[in-house]
């Protein structure tokens, strides 16, 4: 659940692209500009730090792998089906 709430790289990247195109169109109100720059700064900082700090990610992956070790992956029907086709 928390994974869905968390910002992804692609979301951050898309939002940054949008902000830069808005700013570069130069139709930005100064008040809005300040907000946009603030948001962009946050997104950039988020990406840069996430590239370098994965401690939480590692923990999450490890616990999920342990938790799901015995599961058969009920939610992964599509790929299982693919794999079963050829086994």
């Amino acid at each position: 659940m928390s994974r869905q709430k968390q910002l992804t790289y692609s979301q951050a990247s898309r939002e940054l692209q949008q902000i830069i195109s808005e700013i570069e169109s130069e139709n930005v109100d100064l008040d809005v500009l300040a907000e946009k720059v603030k948001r962009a700064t946050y997104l950039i900082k988020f990406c840069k730090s996430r590239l370098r700090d994965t401690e939480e990610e590692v923990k999450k992956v490890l616990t999920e792998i342990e938790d799901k070790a015995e599961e058969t992956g009920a939610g992964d029907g599509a790929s299982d089906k693919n794999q079963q086709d050829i086994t």
Partner: protein
Amino acid sequence: MEKLSINRTACSLYELAGLIKTAVSDSFPESLWVIAEIAELKCNPKGHCYLELVEKNKDQTVAQIKATCWSYEYRRISRTFEKATGESLNPGMKIMLLASVAFHEVYGLSLNIRDIDPTYTMGEMARRKKEVIERLHKEGVIGLNRELPLPLVPQKIAVISSKTAAGYGDFFHQLDTNPYGYRFVHILFPALMQGREAEASIISSLLQISKKRRLFDIAVIIRGGGSVTDLSCFDSYELACHIARSPLPVITGIGHEKDDTVADIVAHTRMKTPTAVAEFLISGMREFEEGILEIQQRIHSCTGRILRDEGYRLDRVSQRLSFIPSQLALSAGNRLEMLSKDLESRIRDCFRNERNRQGGMEQAIRLLDPAQVLRRGYSITRHKGKILRDASLIRKGDTLRTTLSNGAITSIAKITEEDKGHEQTETAYLLPGF
């Protein structure tokens, strides 16, 4: 019965075996080239190699003969074979061998292998590989994995390798000590990377990763350089199918100099070595970050420009604003000045006009003053105290009093005709003091 057996001549088994041995060696005096498939292969501690050679027709064995390769021959033959094919001699392989046929009294018929021609096996492997590729094409799976989009940031990596595989350590070391300080999440899914069980083992790891694909961005299959043998599992149809159908993009770094294996062909991205895979992943992260940094730069310069422009505009506006009061004051002052000048000149005009008018009046008044009129030579004649304007009112003998500028004359009228009036008065002048 007894009699018969006494009369019959019979040879002993040993004699028979000897006969067969002779027959065989007579029939096959020379070594000959044979094509066969290896069904079994075992080496004993002394280095002698024992094989079962078979020929199959649609999975049915139609011929089977034992073969032996003595250690001194086997060492040379297997080395040459591995060098040429990249594979060690293994069951399932088709080979062309030079063999002498021999019959041993105890061990029976067997082929004694003197040489193996690796070019035949290479051709055979190439043909099989081609068949596998064609089949994958036909089934439409060959490009499946390549169609998956590469993740924007390949940070979470499922690794299929063996802890004992060469290059495994290098791979992780390189990822973990990259110069940009990026952190990767990498989880090892151990598999055998060579030998007969490698194929099944790698497939099992791929299946495990598929079930946990949401935890990862990418899967890599790595196997270090060093040994160049036993790559045949990477040419297998089954493994290729699993790689192609993997829900995660698969990157291979199988570590070989030769042609790509089928696994490389179906993988999303093929790299020569584990080190190259690590570089690829790091560069993927770098590319993403450079994109972010470029946007950061653009935002910085663009915002700077906008703020500068806005500052200029404010300056201009404030400058204009600061001019307005002085301009206003100036124009108001000008108007006031003009007004006051106007007023002044008007007042002056007014005064002048008034003066002129008064002057005129004075003059007129002066000119009209009876004294002045008298001084210019006019005179006033009165009759009975009244100013006389009409001569006809005078009768002969009337007394007239004429006032001059200087003094007065009293006269008596003599002639009353108007045209002779002057003469009368002239006469009167002759009587000063009258």
